[in-house]
């Protein structure tokens, strides 16, 4: 009896109704009939992370729009439900709960920072829903309810270091923002470099706070470190906002890519849009996608994006491609399972293979990470990247790094009968959280 709703339910549902109204406008011109399938979009539209995440919200709206034009999914229209977690981590959890419990979305595409993902994880596990996480991250995680479409460290950091070693770099500055992604990546890189015979005194690790803007001391320290007569490179895991002042200071202090190249894992087309890149030509970034990559799929994607957003100066970037891959994988898995029921879709996801934008196919692996090519690009003066190197084949994402002692024995396989995100090959047991799930199945 819906007529007898309590005030509480009614007020809580007010949000749904309004969200329905907002998204109804988007879905208005769709042909498919039937009750819409709701897709949650959980990206910050305000606060510090809005700078990166808003684009992803728009990209998702475009993908859903495209899918509806193609006839929707299972003959039903898709309906996006957009919420704003406002760069506030507990709010991410609250909004995730709202999307799943109240809006009954079939899957959620969202999060950017590691902490936002960590914050929503328990919610997705508890309510047994699906999250597609599109950003490169530190690894060391494999959850049944999460699909990681961004790069794991072995799909970004290690190939980048390999490339630089080939270029003759002997001395390394690992410069990062002080949070988990840089910390873990640098731990992995340190172990990797040492395994390749780099001496401890040739590695310098330094961390700065979030949003750091006065880079004079750090850049000058990099210059000093680089003047020891050996070829030096900087591996930057500096986060979002701090990058612009970092690069501006590099340019001003005359650190050129020829002398000390900087390879970044968090700087893409979107971040460079805020900088005059002519002094930065030659600095590097490692990604699984660049806007400049010349393939028909990519051209098509860029054209659609420009049309959708109504501005042909807006760039595309790697996390957008990750959402593109993730969304298409989900669509395919739902079609394969014939339902949006999360449990069935989760099982159907493994092995699904969809074209990526760089001319190949990406496959969802049993550890819920995907296979991707890795590209090293050099910054050009037009704010784009020119690919200077790429991995010969696809690199499968590795949830558990082989270069950290504790995670070395762990593997992840969500197929039955193992169904475990952290199977310990040393003890032969599924450790920790996975145990409960495995027992439940």
């Amino acid at each position, binding site marked *: 009896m819906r007529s007898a709703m309590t005030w509480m339910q009614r007020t809580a549902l007010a949000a749904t109704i309004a969200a329905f109204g907002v998204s109804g406008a988007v879905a208005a011109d769709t042909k498919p009939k039937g009750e819409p399938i709701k897709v949650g979009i959980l990206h910050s*539209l*305000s*606060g*510090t992370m*809005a*700078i*990166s995440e*808003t*684009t992803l919200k728009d990209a998702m709206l475009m993908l859903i729009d495209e899918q509806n034009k193609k006839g929707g999914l299972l003959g039903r229209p898709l309906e996006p439900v957009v919420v704003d977690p406002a760069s506030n981590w507990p709010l991410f959890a609250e909004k995730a709960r709202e999307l799943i419990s109240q809006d009954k979305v079939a899957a959620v595409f969202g999060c950017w920072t590691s902490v936002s993902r960590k914050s929503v994880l328990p919610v997705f596990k508890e309510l047994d829903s699906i999250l597609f996480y599109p950003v490169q991250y530190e690894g060391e995680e494999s959850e049944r309810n999460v699909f990681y479409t961004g790069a794991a460290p072995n799909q970004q950091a290690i190939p980048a270091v390999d490339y630089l070693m080939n*270029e*003759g770099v002997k001395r390394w500055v690992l410069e990062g923002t*002080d949070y988990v992604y840089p910390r873990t990546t640098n731990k992995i890189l340190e172990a990797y470099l040492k395994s390749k015979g780099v001496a401890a005194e040739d590695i310098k690790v*330094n*961390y*700065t*706070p979030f*949003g*750091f*803007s*006065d880079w*004079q*001391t*750090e850049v*000058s*320290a990099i*210059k*000093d470190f680089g*003047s*020891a*007569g050996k070829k030096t490179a900087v591996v930057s895991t500096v986060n979002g*906002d701090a990058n*612009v*002042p970092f690069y*501006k*200071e590099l*340019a*001003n*202090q*005359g650190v050129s*890519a*020829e002398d000390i*190249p900087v390879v970044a894992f968090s700087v893409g087309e*979107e*971040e460079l*849009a*805020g*900088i*005059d890149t002519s*002094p930065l*030509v*030659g600095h*590097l970034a490692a990604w699984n996608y660049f806007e400049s990559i010349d393939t028909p799929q990519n051209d098509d994607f860029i054209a659609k994006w420009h049309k959708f957003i109504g501005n042909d100066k807006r760039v595309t970037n790697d996390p957008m491609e990750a959402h593109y891959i993730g969304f298409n994988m989900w669509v395919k898995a739902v079609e394969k399972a014939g339902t949006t029921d999360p449990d069935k879709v989760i099982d159907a996801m493994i092995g699904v293979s969809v074209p990526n934008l760089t001319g190949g196919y990406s496959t969802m692996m049993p550890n819920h990470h995907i296979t991707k090519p890795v590209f090293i690009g*050099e910054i*050009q*003066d037009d704010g784009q990247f*020119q690919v*200077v190197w790429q991995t010969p084949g696809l690199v499968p994402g590795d949830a558990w790094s082989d270069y950290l002692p504790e995670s070395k024995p762990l593997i992840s396989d969500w197929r039955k009968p193992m169904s475990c995100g952290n199977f310990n090959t040393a003890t032969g047991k599924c450790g920790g959280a996975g145990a409960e799930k495995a027992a439940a199945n």
Partner: protein
Amino acid sequence: MMRLVRQFLVFLLIALILPIGAYAQSSDPAALIQSFGGKQSFDDTEAVVKKLAAAGDPQVARALNALSKGDLVYRKSDNQVFIASGRGTVDLFDPLTGTKVGEAASRDFSKVRVKNSIRRAVTDALGSLTLRSPDPNTRMAAAGTLFSTATPEAMKTLDAAIAAETVPAIKTKLEEARAAAVLKSDEPAAAKVEAVKTLAGKGDRETLAMIRGVAATSKDAQLKQAATTAAVSIENTIATWTILQNVWYGLSLGSVLLLAAIGLAITFGVMGVINMAHGEMVMLGAYTTFVVQELIRTHAPGLFEVSLAIALPLAFLVSGAVGLVMERCLIRFLYGRPLETLLATFGVSLILQQAVRTIFGPSNREVGNPDFMSGAFDIGLMSVTWNRLWIIVFALVVFVALLALLNKTALGLQMRAVTQNRKMAAAMGIRTPWVDAMTFALGSGIAGIAGVALSQIDNVSPNLGQGYIIDSFMVVVFGGVGNLWGTLVGAMSLGVVNKFLEPYAGAVLGKIVVLVLIILFIQKRPRGLFAQKGRFVDA
């Protein structure tokens, strides 16, 4: 004596052989340049560069430069190589002679792709090729490059160049490069001691690494001694310059803090309004700069160099106008209730942020540095970047102008009168509401000006202001509310302390220490560094 003779003989021999060798290897430079054409791997391109360098013809410098800058293109149809400039329709130049050979559509051409290692090869090649260039600056740059790349084989070339060089500064550089080459060679120890002595005068970190290497590996006692002594003296020099460098960085950070805080010193310090939207005033100034540059880019590209000068008054007006509206519509109802002003202005700051996000989008906007704000120059071992220098100068100019405005103009007099005794000022016929509005607009306008400067070193995004608001309050409170000099001294001392802590404690811990110091300092002097004194001051 023997050494000299032997050196001479070797020199003679090489002087004879070198040209022959060079000619023996060389093919026609024009043909070599043409081999850049067509799709080829980076390694192929690099090999061509090496060949061109070996050919030793200074004429190829033009083509190499163009290659490094990405201006070297080849025609897709026949792989012929040109230097191109312009977009859309490009002008084509002969890569060897530089004469214009025609125009064409850019889509018919492909860039010769380069990467860092190729650029480096080009730089190295240009180093030896341009050592005899008629342009002193080019020679200077070449000598600089040779210092780090010089091999023992380059010594002869350097000797020749030294002999021919007339400019003393370049000559010194060349001699240093030669000394570096000597240290790498198997010259006798005595020659190396000389080289170490030459290098001791240069005294930078690169030299230090080189000399330390000699000190560590040399078996000759005398050389070891000389190298050790030189290393110590260089270390001392570096230590002194490091201190100076830190002071400079500190002043530079201080000037940024000063710029961010000085508007607040008016609105908060003089008027007592806790303006949480202050950071957003700074942000508006930065966005004004962006809009100005954007208009200039599309309508009058020639004005780019003066874009900041145009943006300054506009930023002042924009932020000032927003401040005026805020004061008239909001703050004037809240005088005497500072904590409620805090809430209301916090609300305004949210609105302004979201407004900017809605209008300009959430991502960073590009604000370019004009040429005079780009690059750096060296004083001794200290590298001074132009943008930081100009920002320090600018911050001081703003400070002095504001001081003059407060102390020398009628408006300043009225402002001080109103803040000291509102009733009395009103009784004297001063229109206090007008003065309030003007004061607030002034403070906001100055924040806008600060935004123009900060757009040169920081992100231009809706979050720009948030990053500065807390620091600004710290500066004003630390310096002493209501005292501009306090703000100046507060900003500069916080900057310097921060920068001295940073190398030891790291950026994060350094900042924490500074905050704790401020807290402790306020316990000691509850009214800040430059407290207003007198018996009328009461809590």
